């Protein structure tokens, strides 16, 4: 037998053996060793390891934190209000043995199991709370409770630890959200109406004040002007009186003459006269009787 052939063949055989007895587990993975389908070693960490060729084989699973992003689901809250919840779950494989037993390493199977459990958990919790509680601050509480309860089940049943259940979105179903929109609109409308009315009210107040002030100013002015006129009239009257009082009879005489002149000053004024007044004294005869 030729040595080189033997050595070549021997080399090939050795390589083959090595290949099937050494395997590498990546940092991101965890592995289990199966012998004829039965688990003989589990939780194999990263690095290079040895197994029996052909008889034993190795299954590797993603050891990282994985995300399950499920479809949005409808949940009922207290008060018969529906919400549409879109959640995601952060999970990782903790007990590889249990995981393999439950899912045969099929990730899709795992996510189905996980999402069913989660939805059940969410449903129970949501049904016990009102819409406000669910939407607002108590979410942390809610989520922590759900996570804890879930973990009990998931660890036991399929070796999965749930790190976090988070709600990506809580939305109202269409009919409810229409109501919300309508309410928002009417609230705003009311606010707008109020604002405008307030504006009008203040404006009317300003105008009324202005009008009132104007009336007052004018009234006062009228009063003062009347006073002044009165003063003028009084002084005039006293001036007249003091002058005319010097000879009241003479005043009466001259004033009457003026009155006659003013009264009878046009041809449409007709005087029927008898010639026995003093004026006609000299008409009959030249000498005074």
């Amino acid at each position, binding site marked *: 037998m030729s040595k080189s052939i033997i050595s070549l063949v021997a080399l090939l055989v050795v390589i083959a053996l090595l290949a099937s007895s050494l395997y590498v587990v990546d940092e991101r993975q965890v592995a289990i060793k199966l012998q004829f389908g039965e688990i003989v070693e589990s939780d194999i960490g990263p690095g290079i390891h040895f197994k029996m060729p052909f008889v034993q084989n190795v299954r590797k699973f993603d050891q990282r934190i994985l995300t399950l992003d499920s479809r949005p689901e409808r949940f009922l809250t207290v008060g018969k209000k529906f919400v549409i919840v879109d959640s995601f779950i952060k999970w990782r494989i903790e007990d590889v043995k249990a995981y393999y037993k439950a899912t045969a390493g099929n990730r899709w199977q795992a996510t189905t199991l996980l999402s069913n459990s989660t939805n059940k958990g969410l449903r129970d919790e949501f049904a016990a709370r009102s819409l406000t509680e669910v*939407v607002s601050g108590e979410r942390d509480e809610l989520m922590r409770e759900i996570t804890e309860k879930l973990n009990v089940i998931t660890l036991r049943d399929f070796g999965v630890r749930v790190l976090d259940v*988070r709600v990506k979105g809580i939305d*109202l179903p269409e009919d409810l959200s229409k109501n919300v929109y309508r309410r928002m609109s009417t609230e705003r409308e009311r606010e707008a109406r109020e604002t405008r009315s307030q504006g009008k009210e203040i404006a009317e107040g300003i105008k009324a004040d202005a009008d009132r002030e104007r009336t007052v100013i004018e009234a*006062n*002015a009228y009063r003062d002007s009347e006073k002044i006129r009165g003063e003028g009239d009084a002084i005039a009257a006293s001036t007249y009186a003091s002058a005319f009082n010097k000879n009241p009879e003479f005043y009466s005489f001259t004033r009457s003459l003026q009155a006659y*002149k003013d009264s009878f000053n046009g041809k449409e004024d007709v005087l029927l006269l008898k010639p026995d007044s003093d*004026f006609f004294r000299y008409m009959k005869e030249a000498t005074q009787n």
Partner: protein
Amino acid sequence: MAWNEPGNQNGKDPWGNNNRGGNQGPPDLDQAIKQVLDKLNGMFGGGGNKDNGGSSSQGSGGVFGIVAILLILFLAWKSVYTIDEQQRGVVLQLGKYSRTLEPGLRIVIPLIEKVIPVNVTNVRNAELKEEMLTQDENVVEIDLNVQYTVRDPVSFALRVEEPERSLQHAAESALRHEVGSTDLNPIMTDGRAVLAENTRLRLQDYMDRYETGINVSVVNIKEARAPAAVQAAFDDVQKANLDKERFINEAEAYANTVIPEARGKAQRMLEEANAYKDQVIAKAQGEAERFEKLLVEYDKAPKVTRERLYLDAISEVYANSSKVLVDVEGGNNMMYIPLDKIVSAQPSTQTRNESEDYDISDLTDRVINEIRNRNSRSSSREVR
């Protein structure tokens, strides 16, 4: 007896057959290989001859040599890795994490070690635009922007599946949580900065818990507005505020016109009153003085002055009027006096012969009074 005794030239085997043909072994694989290798040797010239010794088995050493050299070159090429200034290299040795490479030219063990490059300086961006519920059951539309970098390349590469998608989910969740804890009004007005900061803190917390190695540097709320369906109503609130201001401004403008006008009118009224007063007093003084002057003369010669004044006045009266002198003694005589013929025959005149000052001033008085009456009539219509 041995079957090949010395001196026996015919090599006999135990069965008595003669072996002819000299030094033959089994039909010659050995030979064949040697021939092929020699040929190859010849083709590759001297290069492979380094390892050639004398024996046939070393003929194959030449090929191995070439392969070895190629292998060495290949491995050399594979063991040098360039890490960009922006990156770090996460090294897995046989699957296990061994170290992180800094930027530059680095050596790794080929085949055994695998390098995962991670960009750590690049500022990455995630965007988010969603409608969500607020604490007071209103809906708001938020436009969000997250800036982040990779702080820990090992975690980023090894601990989480799809870390950037994780960030996207977590950002949505963090934002909704924070919005769900705030009322609508602060979100739309002055609470935005607080909201963004709270979201950033929450998001960073999630990132740390999920071991992503991501550092959230900035969370920025670009827009926070009412959903499109109710935008009109929200805009109307703005308009209403503007309207309110407008109403008030108009009213103030009105006030600013009306009051100064009133003051002006008041001033005028006072001025007119003063004018009247001065006028009336002056008129009185004038007339009084005129009378007094006349009185002085009258006192000097009363009878004559009286007679003169009387006759002057009466003659003027008679001159200007229509007269009928009836010189009949009493009795019941009926007389026909056509008065209307007398009146209509003469053109009616209102002659004021006297053009003395006080009559003109009298006329002026009457004009002023008339104007004042008209004014006060119109202002009394305005004053309610």
